């Protein structure tokens, strides 16, 4: 059960990481990247590191996404 959960999360992690690299729409990439952070957060939690999970959720999924969105808003949305 526990291993299956881990493997599912890791597969999801790889899928989101590939999606971030492939997406040309930077807004979509930023949103998918925050999903990546959320999956990572669950993995940290499951691996027994609640403090790292907390930081990942707040900084990875929250703050960096906001900063990415601001940066996209000030530049262009499409990757050249």
């Amino acid at each position: 059960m526990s291993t299956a959960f881990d493997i599912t999360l890791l597969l999801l992690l790889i899928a989101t990481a590939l999606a971030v690299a492939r997406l040309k729409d930077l807004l979509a990439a930023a949103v998918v990247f925050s999903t990546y952070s959320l999956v990572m957060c669950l993995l940290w939690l499951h691996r027994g590191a609640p403090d790292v999970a907390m930081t990942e959720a707040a900084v990875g999924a929250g703050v960096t996404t906001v900063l990415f969105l601001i940066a996209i808003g000030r530049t262009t949305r499409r990757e050249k």
Partner: protein
Amino acid sequence: MKKALVTSLLIIAAIPMLIAVAALPRHGALDTPVQTGISAHYLEFGVEEAGAENIVTDVILNYRGFDTEFEVTVIFTSLAAVLALLLGASTAGATLSRPGSGVRPSVVVRFVVRLLAPFTAMFAIYVILNGHVSPGGGFQGGAVLGALFITLTVVLGGARVAGAFPEASRRWLQIAAPLTFAVAGVAGVLLTGFYLGYPTEVGLHWLRTFMIIAIEIGIGVGGAAIIATLFIVMEAE
């Protein structure tokens, strides 16, 4: 041709890396340096020697205190670099206006954020102050506090949130983490003769706990202020 070359180079580079990963010891294996080295000492004597029930805090603030001190200095320096880049370009400086697209968040978002804000703040403060007992501490609580600041700024508008933090005090909040570390370090010199030394005498355990909590608060406040400032400066026109 070029693509085939790049692909084959990547595959050649990947093979030793994958072999190295396969050779890594199993997660939690008993014969790894993690288990046989210094960690065992930390786990057995950490609470007694370093003074915090949470071993992670013992390592971060006591055994590896210098690492953490310069880590927060690096974070502060990165903020200084961002400020130099972004504020140098604009003449107005960081005014806490909220220009953006002019779209106000929906009533649902506004209600939920306002409803949860006090609880989020309380959780962040709990995490900071309880860092020596339970998982968490200054970095974690500071991140939550900074994220709360961002959501509040988006929902309530920058002016109302900024009113709580006058310009003069903001500088002190941003440098809070390296500053408290430096003060605690010098206090350590006076108390024990070592920079960032914590008193270990039985009668002075309260002082050691006080120092740990003070540093946690410094890291939390400083971290939150740095996250908030990054957001303000990047968003300001």
